[in-house]
């Protein structure tokens, strides 16, 4: 099998690249050798870039150091063992791959995409050239592969109903195909990092740089910190939740979905089950045992131990809980988080 070294260098996550690595006898162990120090440094640089949101399309660098630095970076990310970093890194490298794919000249674009899709991801994909309503479709992908990824995207154009689907194949432009592949690539890199088996100690060799990276991580992490959870700011509640809350204070009866939405929302913001039950006690036919059971169930403390998330805005609209004020979000929790963030932003400046 002819190994296309240039392509391997462009897309180091492919199976082809991994096979090549094995062929040249490279393993993460080797990185501990001082001769590979430049590779390690380049890997650190790569990891720093992923935290900077600064994606540069990959130039056709056939430089061996650049090529090996990808694996070194994977090994480091694995060792550092921070979920958030793993996700940022995979996203960064996958996005880089996307730009690399679409910045090639058309012929090479086609080759690269087909190669990655079939060689690494076993897609059923065909190269085509069909123009419909001023759009040029260059690829046709089997609907089963398309549906593994596309439903995650929110834009309407990805919905199957809005695509040309013929004989089981979804018609896609080059950019769209590359975008889908980007998702696959991201998942693969994450999974490769997770299944990394070698027992190595690289972090000690570059301790200072790693410490610096870890301190940057805390800054970019958007999870609500513990102190924020303790004080739920009622003024930041989305209008739908506010409405239910007011009804509760008045002792009005709530529908099942209103109770569920409110309970799961508040629990997610860190309100304790006891405080919630207290709130519900205002309602006329309050049954303390039943309420406790239901609240604890939604909190994941009983039975199947699933911790429930409040329904999305789309579901709330279907059930008449949304009061149609055009919040501009897709989920009630996003509304609260957004309001929190913008307030924090103001405080900083």
């Amino acid at each position, binding site marked *: 099998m002819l190994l296309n070294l240039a392509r391997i260098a462009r897309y180091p996550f492919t199976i082809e690249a991994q096979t090549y690595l094995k062929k040249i006898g490279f393993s993460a162990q080797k990185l501990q050798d001082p001769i590979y120090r430049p590779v390690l440094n380049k890997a650190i640089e790569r990891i720093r870039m992923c935290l900077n949101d600064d994606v540069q399309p990959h130039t056709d660098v056939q430089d061996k150091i650049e090529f090996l630095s990808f694996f070194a970076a994977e090994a480091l990310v694995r060792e550092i063992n921070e979920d958030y970093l793993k996700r940022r890194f995979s996203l960064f490298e996958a996005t880089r791959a996307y730009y690399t794919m679409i910045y090639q000249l058309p012929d090479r674009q086609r080759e690269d995409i087909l190669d990655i899709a079939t060689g690494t991801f076993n897609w059923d994909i065909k190269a085509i050239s069909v123009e419909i*309503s001023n759009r040029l479709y260059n690829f046709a992908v089997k609907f089963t592969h398309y549906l593994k990824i*596309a*439903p995650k995207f929110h834009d309407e154009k990805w*919905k199957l*109903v*809005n695509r040309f689907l*013929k004989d089981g194949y979804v018609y896609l432009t080059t950019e769209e195909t590359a975008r889908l592949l980007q998702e696959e690539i991201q998942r693969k890199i994450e999974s490769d990092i997770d299944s990394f088996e070698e027992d190595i100690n690289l972090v000690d060799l570059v301790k200072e740089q790693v410490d610096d990276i870890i301190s940057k991580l805390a800054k970019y992490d958007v999870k609500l910190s513990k102190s924020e959870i303790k004080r739920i700011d009622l003024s930041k509640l989305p209008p739908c939740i506010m409405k239910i809350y007011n009804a509760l204070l008045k002792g009005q009866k709530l529908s099942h979905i209103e109770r569920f939405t409110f309970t799961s929302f508040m629990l997610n913001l860190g309100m304790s089950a006891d405080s919630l039950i207290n709130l519900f006690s205002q309602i006329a036919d309050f049954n303390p045992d039943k309420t406790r059971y239901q609240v604890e169930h939604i909190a994941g403390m009983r039975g199947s131990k699933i911790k429930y998330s409040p329904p999305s805005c789309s579901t709330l609209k279907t059930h008449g809980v949304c009061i149609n004020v055009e919040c501009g979000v897709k989920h009630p929790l996003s509304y609260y988080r957004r309001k929190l963030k913008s307030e924090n932003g103001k405080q900083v400046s």
Partner: protein
Amino acid sequence: MESKSLEFLKEKFREYYTKNDIALPRDYTKREFGFLLFKENVMIRHRSFRTHEEFMKFIRHAVPSDIYYSSAYYTRPEASMDNKGWIGADLVFDVDADHLPTECKIKHDVLACLKCGFTFSGKGNESCPACGGKAKEKKWFCEKCLDAAKNEVLKLLDFLFDDFGLSSKEVAIFFSGHRGFHVHIESEEVLYLDQAARKEIVDYIRGVGLNLSAIGLGSKVSLDSYSWAGRIARGFYDLLLMDENCLKKLGLTEYDIGLLEEERSALRRIEMGGVRMSRRRFKRILQTVIERQSANIDTIVTTDVRRLIRMPYTLHGKTGLKVMKVPLAQFEAYDPLKEAIVFREKDTVKVRVDFAPKFRFGDEEYGPFSNQVVELPVGAAVLLLCKKAATLAE
């Protein structure tokens, strides 16, 4: 159901299951089975079988009124829902005349008072006009209902073959035993589709979430375009060929009909390969087109990756008819009221009928009956008994 009728039905069902070997679905050892019994109102679930013999022994002994199996494959089908270990699932579709707006329902679907037995027509929750008691829905089915269901299945098949590229070998059609049809697809490629993927498939077939500009319908689209673009063009063309009365029946207003009239006079434009759709004005017309072009399938059955579905070749507890496989080539002409009958003996049985509209069974027509004792061939009697429209009179 009172015990004499129940025993009779159970005997007939036992007869069927004893005389016949019921073929099990592919990879049945990985599937969960569910059963409804004649007497109790509970469903037996989380059963699995290691051999065909084990299964036949069970149903011959228990004689369920209805038999179901999971479209899903599990590593441990007998475990509780959380622990079954989902591997994959068949792709299944359900078309039920229950969900279709047929005109004949007014004639044969009634409400029956649980207190005084008075039957009357209505929608759902009304109380008995004679005594004010609670009423229960009694649904019937007829050829028109089944024809409507068939029509939807034909549209579904179009989607499956033309759009989804499935071959006729991969698609199996079954009469549901009552008012509709099930379509099962067991091929390898669809097994691992998750819930989100199946929802997309359902939305595609029902035309939900269509964004016209996304499929290039902002300006011209020709009749032979692919997928929904082509369907909308063809559907629009269909409307252009309809007369005013038909259009009114579809619910279109004078304004809409006027718009179509304008377009019709420019029909030549269409024949030269393009339909111009100016979206806002045509909104209602477009809605009608989408409704006519989409297939009215049950959304939950297809989306749910852990569904229990009725098992082929078994009997339906509400009719005594067989869940029969219908070969594709014979689908259009298929007549369940003849072919799905299992009890064909010429023997007769006396039954006391509460209420039954006129119905065809096999080659004969029976009824309408109201509060009378009649002597019917076994098959027809079983139907009435299963539907709880009659009780055994002898």
